[in-house]
């Protein structure tokens, strides 16, 4: 091949690189390894971690290890999807495009919102982008983040907002609840100002919150926010919406959340699936970040087809004026989520959703019966809740639980031994009972 194109040495193809820069030797990385050697190496690395199938984990806080049905695990390996690029040539990418359109459509039904984009990186970055969208639409710079919110999501929201001059006002509230009266007061004050002098672009809160709690039904609060032309973004756990009222019902403008819960592995924290949804508004859909898939037809027939649309918002066309810099997203996890939502179906989502509420309430009730333990510390809860384990230290609790094969949730910053516990559909009744028995033994 080299001779065919007039060269005699491969290094001639690098003759344009200054001699002083060209490495004479390979970089110092071991290998090449055979497939067997490579597999053994990674098996030995994996063996240094606990085998998750022998561990009962109560970790949540945004993502959870959920059961992945066999059919989904099998389908999510289709090389035609996994090894494809962004579907910029729709004629040869209809399969992926239709799957993504189905993802958008099914999630829209769950959220009761009209528009869902084709994915963000994760919940935290979706929140960061939602802050920027609310600011662009209102031309105001202050955004309130209210109620219990995970520290990692807050940190990411700051990274997205503050470099470009936005101000995040964090109002955590007490007892796992939204600080409704303070919020009402802020928006009433805004109401008294001239439109041009209003400062608040919007409000963000989570249902359920980071502490697993459901706030008071937020309709009056949202009406107050809308009363000053500000916007509301709600963060959700999509599984909860089988039994809990969806954000579209209480007039949320934007929704963010974590789609990992819809059939994707936790994967040590990524790839995840950032949910970004909005009401349908001709102005708003031109401000949403990320890719949008739309339904259309062939030019020459009425046969249905799908393609990326409204690309003029995106970085490859608008460059520094784009709505976001996002290009690569999390498509394959959105495809997995689409398959999962279809597999659960109308009845399955309700049942799964209820079954998590059942497990959480059962576990909290059992733990609460142990002397010195308070569970749930704040309510009402859905699938996650804060437990006060009393006088034991986090380290002691973690060590003993790990020895017995349990991960006792996540440490909550603050006084004492308070931890966030989450249930999943992997938990059997005997898992829950065994954990309660272990805790009873540990704290007594």
């Amino acid at each position: 091949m080299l001779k065919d194109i007039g060269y005699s040495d491969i290094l001639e193809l690098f003759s344009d690189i200054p001699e002083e820069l060209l490495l004479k030797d390979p970089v110092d990385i071991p290998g090449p390894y055979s497939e067997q050697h490579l597999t053994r190496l990674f098996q030995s690395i994996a063996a240094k971690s606990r085998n998750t199938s022998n561990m009962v984990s109560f970790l949540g806080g945004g993502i959870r290890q959920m059961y992945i049905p066999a059919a989904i695990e099998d389908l999510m390996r289709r090389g035609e999807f996994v090894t494809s690029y962004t579907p910029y040539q729709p004629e040869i990418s209809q399969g992926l495009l239709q799957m993504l359109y189905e993802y958008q459509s099914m999630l829209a039904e769950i959220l009761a919102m009209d528009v869902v984009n084709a994915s963000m990186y994760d919940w935290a970055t979706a929140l960061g982008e939602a802050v920027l969208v609310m600011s662009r639409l209102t031309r105001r710079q202050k955004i309130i983040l209210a109620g219990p919110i995970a520290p990692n999501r807050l940190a990411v929201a700051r990274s997205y907002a503050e470099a470009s001059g936005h101000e995040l006002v964090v109002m955590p509230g007490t007892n796992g609840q939204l600080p409704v009266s303070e919020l009402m007061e802020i928006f009433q004050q805004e109401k008294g100002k001239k439109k041009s002098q209003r400062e608040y672009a919007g409000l963000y809160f989570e249902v359920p919150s980071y502490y697993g709690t459901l706030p008071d039904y937020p309709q009056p609060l949202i009406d107050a926010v809308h009363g000053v032309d500000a916007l509301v973004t709600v963060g959700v756990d999509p599984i909860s919406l089988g039994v809990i009222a969806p954000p579209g019902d209480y007039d949320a403008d934007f929704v963010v959340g974590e789609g990992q819960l819809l059939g994707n592995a936790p994967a040590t924290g990524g790839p995840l699936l950032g949910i970004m949804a909005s009401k349908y508004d001709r102005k708003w859909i031109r401000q949403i970040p990320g890719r949008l898939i739309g339904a259309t037809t062939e030019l020459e027939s009425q046969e249905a087809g799908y393609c990326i649309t409204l690309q003029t918002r995106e970085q490859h066309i608008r460059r520094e004026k784009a709505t976001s810099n996002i290009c690569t997203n999390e498509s394959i996890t959105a495809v997995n989520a689409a398959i999962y939502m279809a597999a659960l179906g109308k009845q399955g989502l309700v049942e799964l959703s209820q079954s998590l509420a059942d497990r959480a309430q059962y576990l909290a009730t059992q733990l609460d019966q142990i002397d010195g333990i308070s569970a749930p510390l704040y309510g009402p809860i859905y699938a996650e809740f804060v437990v006060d384990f009393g006088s034991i230290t986090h380290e002691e609790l973690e060590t003993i639980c790990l020895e017995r094969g349990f991960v006792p949730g996540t440490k909550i910053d603050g006084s004492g031994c308070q931890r966030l516990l989450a249930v999943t559909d992997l938990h059997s009744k005997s898992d829950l009972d065994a954990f309660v028995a272990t805790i009873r033994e540990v704290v007594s």
Partner: protein
Amino acid sequence: MVEKRQQAHWQEKLIMDKGRPGRRAHIPDQLDIPHASIPTTWQRQQPAALPEVSELELVRHVVRLSQMNHGVDVGPYPLGSCTMKYNPKVNERIARFDAFAMMHPDTPDIAQQGNIEVLYRLQEVLKTITGFGGVTVQPAAGAQGEYVGMLISRAYHADRGDHQRTKVLIPDSAHGTNPASAAMAGYKVVELPSTENGYVDLEALAAALDDTVAAFMITNPNTLGIFEPQIKEISKMVHDAGALMYLDGANFNGVVGMVRSADMDFDIQHFNLHKTFSGPHGGGGPGCGPVGVADHLVDFLPTPLAAYDPDKDLYYFDYDRPKSIGRVHGYHGNFGIAIRALAYIYRNGGIGLRKMCQAAVLNANYLMEKVKQIKGYVVPKATGIPRKHEFIASPVPLMNDTGVTAGDIAKAILDYGIHSPTVYFPLIIKEALLIEPTEAENRDSLDDIVDALREIAEQAYADADSIHAMPKLTSRGRLDEYELAKNPVLSQRQSPDS
């Protein structure tokens, strides 16, 4: 004659339009425990209108749709600047190991030592490959890596009290993410023209550099596949002005193992592990966009970093980093892609990475020489200079002679079972077809691409209208994108007239 390929053409209804009431696929596990009550005001009134299909219906639906999709596993994908190389299956299997795939990232460090070790090892090998002093794996994609790089630039200049640096310089041939990321970080973007040969214009650079410039973002090899021969001089000019050198690593496949970024005096670089190091692109994502920095910027990297304590022989996440820019991802970025990349790097070793790069460059130059000979094509800029991993072919003569454009060629080549090159990018070249074959395609496959392009050109000269009617063998013909952009239908829930 090169073979054309008929893609599957199923008339597959939307999944929501299939099935019947009461049909089920996955039935959730129910425990024998009391039913929890949801507060009345919070109870959902109407169940979400999800499909009601059987498992077999769903499996057939997804398999049929997959058959209407092109991937590297199906055929060549010479999409420039995207590095659509083969994604080795062994990496997929390793990424699925239970301890990696099913681990919650908040698991105590002691119970996920191997997972932290994977991140640590990847940080270390990327340092070795580039000569940098520190690496974070947290950014979820290349664009987020760019954003992190810009935040690091802000933090570095602020730390020195250099607050007047508000501008970032970017060549006109750059990827669109560069200006978008710089703008998101609050910088003003100044676009620099390229020279006739596609290089950085040193005079324009000198004129633009002053104490208001924070960084110069550059892609090397650039988006024409051309290496900047004066990169050391450029770095010196930028550093003398007190600004930082940022390398967009999207085109790293053209130099990996041959040149180290630190030797070119770059301060910051992002990697696209899903390009250079074989993470599957997943239909547009996930990616993984680690950032490497020179020693003086290590303190500003995102938190946490994977770290190792040799005394205790323990891996841990280091949160004690007071100058850090903070977090850009809820957890540790796309671990699933990071581990595939690490497996790929070890599978190749230093020796293999060098060979891989050489093969990618050979393939690009072979293809360039062959395409150049096709009537109607030119290869603009930098004549006689070898390209790195990609090159631009421009069918301007063909368009002038026949009216067939780069966009038409992109559609016509789909009928050969070959994905189109990147079209109309970079913006500075007329009728650009940016072609990147990667090292993964063999000579037969490269010859197929050349033959397809030649046949299309010949057909254009013989009967241009027939090209406008292509593709014909893909699952759908050309779509009405214009009407859709005018009246976007973005979900089935959205009523058409809303």
